[in-house]
């Protein structure tokens, strides 16, 4: 892909040739020119969609009514354009391009690749299942998937065997719907569990199960493609326009970033101990405890915790006092603190050096970057703690055994933010947190709201949704920030602020 400023449009009929089906395997990369703006917008919007896919995938039963409704809404949002009458072509183009951009961002590490493949697969599965049966067959043909349909005579002769091997197959279904013949190597999940009829090396897959096979194919192709993309990434990253964007995308979440401090000075230092037990997410509670016990934190911990404190409203003076009083209790005397550590606190507040006002770390950032080593207390306990230790900690914090187990299950499934959300629900004694956790400061704000509100959880959700739909009033300040960010190409968090 090349990126001059102008956009080149494709003419009529070639549009149809390029995207002849609403779904695709993303085999060919896009070959057109695209503006930087569109590049960024497409990427961010697809990311939002994939994050929704992830959240829904764990909070709802897949294919339940709730899941379908919500995912449908999100997909429509993705394809919806402010200009009326977005054409089918435009939709497919956006699908195509946004996927490939995210490949660039998500090919770099095993974790990122796995996440991306999982969400893209879930999205694909949903959209494929949603297709009319004729379009499913269309898709298979157009993608040269060598899945032959079984002839009517063969179907008849094998009817009993087919019914006895495949789940949910009846005589009428066999007659009316296609059955596909697929080499058994392409249907391993069904072979392994003996849920399919095998003959002469072929698996006989009924129509309603063909999606499993297609998905395997999808996963294999995407996995290979990501590995290849990772190899060519250095060339892409050397483009200065793209590098900060891509690296931010892979750590991005979409939502508030708590860079603009509200409630400055509303928290007093004496309250912090109590707050750490009540309203801090586990990572920050952990860091606070370590700081109190050791009178010290290493750099990673200072950054993660210090920025969090800034986000909840500590002023620079308060922060300096907080850190100094704690460090002085340890091995650091007041002079040394002023010389060595005070600078870095001021740096965090943007009062030194580049004067960049650092934003508090989001959950993604905490989970994915800078894993803790021996002697560190930062990171995400759900991601970085040994499950046994995590279990003990939760028990110490009086989380019920059944609650602890639920949390551990989520951790096993690598749903760290959901585990933290569950921790929120258990410690605040609510059934539903009412928000989708992706930032430690969000945890704090929501907790404070809950504890001091007596608020109606449902109302909060409606309010936050409404504010997302009315970007006009809120985007003005962020647009000012975004111009700044563009000029500086420094901190991009505010550019992605979306409210």
């Amino acid at each position, binding site marked *: 892909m090349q990126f001059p400023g102008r956009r080149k449009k494709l003419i009529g009929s070639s549009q149809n040739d390029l995207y002849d089906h609403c779904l695709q395997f993303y085999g060919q990369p896009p070959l057109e020119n695209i503006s930087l703006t569109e590049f960024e917008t497409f990427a961010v919007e697809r990311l939002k969609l994939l994050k929704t896919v992830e959240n829904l995938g764990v909070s709802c039963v897949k294919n339940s009514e709730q899941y379908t409704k919500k995912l449908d809404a999100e997909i429509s949002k993705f394809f919806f354009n402010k200009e009326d009458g977005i054409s089918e072509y435009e939709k497919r183009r956006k699908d195509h391009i946004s996927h490939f951009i995210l490949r660039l961002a998500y090919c770099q590490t095993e974790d990122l690749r796995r996440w991306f493949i999982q969400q893209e697969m879930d999205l694909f599965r949903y959209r494929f299942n949603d297709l009319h049966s004729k379009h499913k067959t269309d898709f298979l043909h157009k993608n040269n998937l060598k899945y032959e349909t079984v002839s009517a005579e063969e179907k008849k002769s094998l009817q009993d065997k087919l019914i006895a091997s495949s789940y949910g197959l009846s005589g009428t279904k066999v007659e009316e719907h296609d059955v596909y013949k697929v080499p058994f*190597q392409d249907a391993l999940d069904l072979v*392994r569990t003996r849920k399919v009829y095998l003959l002469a090396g072929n698996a006989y897959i009924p129509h309603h199960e063909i999606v499993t096979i297609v998905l395997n194919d999808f996963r294999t192709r995407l996995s290979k493609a990501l590995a290849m993309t990772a190899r060519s990434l250095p060339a892409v990253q050397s483009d200065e326009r793209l590098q900060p964007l891509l690296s931010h995308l892979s750590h991005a979440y979409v939502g508030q970033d708590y860079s603009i401090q509200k409630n400055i000075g509303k928290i007093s230092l004496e309250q912090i101990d109590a707050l750490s037990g009540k309203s801090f997410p586990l990572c920050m509670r952990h860091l606070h405890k370590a700081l109190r016990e050791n009178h010290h934190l290493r750099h990673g911990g200072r950054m993660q915790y210090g920025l969090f404190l800034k986000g909840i409203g500590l002023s620079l003076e308060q922060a300096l006092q907080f850190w100094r009083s704690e460090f002085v209790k340890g091995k650091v005397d007041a002079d040394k603190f002023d010389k060595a550590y005070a600078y870095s606190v001021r740096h965090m507040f943007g009062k030194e050096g580049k004067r960049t006002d650092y934003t508090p770390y989001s959950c993604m950032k905490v989970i994915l970057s800078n894993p803790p080593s021996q002697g560190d207390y930062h990171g995400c306990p759900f991601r970085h703690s040994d499950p046994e230790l995590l279990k003990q900690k939760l028990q110490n914090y009086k989380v019920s055994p059944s609650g602890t187990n639920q949390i551990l299950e989520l951790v096993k499934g690598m749903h760290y933010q959901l585990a933290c959300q569950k921790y929120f629900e258990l410690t605040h004694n609510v059934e539903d947190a009412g928000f989708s956790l992706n930032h430690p400061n969000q945890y704090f704000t929501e907790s404070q709201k809950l504890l001091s509100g007596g608020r109606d959880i449902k109302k909060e959700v409606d309010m936050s949704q409404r504010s997302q739909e009315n970007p006009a009033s809120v985007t003005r300040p962020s647009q000012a920030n975004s111009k700044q960010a563009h000029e500086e190409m420094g901190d991009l968090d505010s550019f992605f602020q979306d409210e």
Partner: protein
Amino acid sequence: MSTSDYDPACLPDLLPLYYRRLFPFSQYYRWLSYGGVSKNYFQNREFSFTLKDDIYVRYQSFTTQNELEKEMQKMVPYKIDIGAVYSHRPSQHNAVKSGTFQALEKELVFDIDMTDYDDVRRCCSAADICSKCWTLMTIAIRILDRALREDFGFHHLLWVYSGRRGVHCWVCDDAARKLSVAARSAVAEYLSLVKGGEETVRKVVLSDPIHPFINHSLSVVERYFQQYAIVDQDILGSKESVDKVLAVLPEDIKKDLAVSFKDEKDPMKRWNLLCDLVLRKKSNSKKGGQYFDKEIMLQYCYPRLDVNVSKGVNHLLKSPFSVHPKTGRISVPIDLKELDTFDPFEVPTISLICEELEKPRAEEAEEDDMKDKENEQEAGERRRIRDYKRTSLAKYVKVFDRFLEAMARSRKGEMLKKSDLQKDF
């Protein structure tokens, strides 16, 4: 007698003779070269040898048949294992950049070991086998051979007696050799029905509908079950074994049978009672899918395979025609046409065939010796062929020959197909 008394202490003397004059090197090389279709297929194959005093060496590889012969005659391995075809010559694996030396292909293999049936055979245990429990191997071979051919579409299967207490299957089709780890494990799991270890009482659970594969397997088991289990193993004879059988049944059936068995002592009749009762209970139950009698048959007879042996592309398995050091028996190919009469105790030992070799030869032999003086290498081979033909090893090498012929024919057929497609006349 087919077994001269074998004494492991004689191995150091017998093995050199075996490798010089009896081991079928040219067929062996022909097998592992697979028609020379893939470059360096033989050269990149790993062999491992267990030498005298249990010294184990891996990553042995050879460039030609001649080199293989010379090395084996020199090292005189007690055991020979065959591994995978790698990306580079295994003997040079240390010179290869780390990470690039990889196992690429290998036959799909299965290892059926009699010790895995110890919980359901009463005649022997551990490494012992007898004619009574050998039926289990017959059943295993029939079930797996059918499934691998009919369900999975494989054609070139070599079944080999391991030399002591089991059988191996080498699936040599092109497609089989290229299977991934995931595919191998999927095939092995498809073929697995008996699940659970010591703590599991009921190791086979069937539910409706019964998959065609299970039905096929059941019909094989049913052919042998009465003679093998009821008569030979006498599973419904003594109280101890009856209890074991009944342990997998639900309480109500167990109780009824315990009562009826007090009066009925004939094991065959007991089995019929059991089947009738299960049938009756099934038609009464709304749930359906109660196949306890079939489950018992499968638990006592269905093949037990070690998935780990089949999974790994780089797994090393005992080579056909190697000697079993403890029994002296040669790992010979099994002729499936004569499966029901195969007797592991009739398999020749190394001492027997060496003895047969020493018997005085006929007159034609001297003429052949004259011809041999002309060309030494060919002479060596011709002599070797004449040699094993005089021993009990002959008929097993013939089985191997037929197997190789079938593969050669199939390769030829493939090439014709390909050239037809390319319109190369």
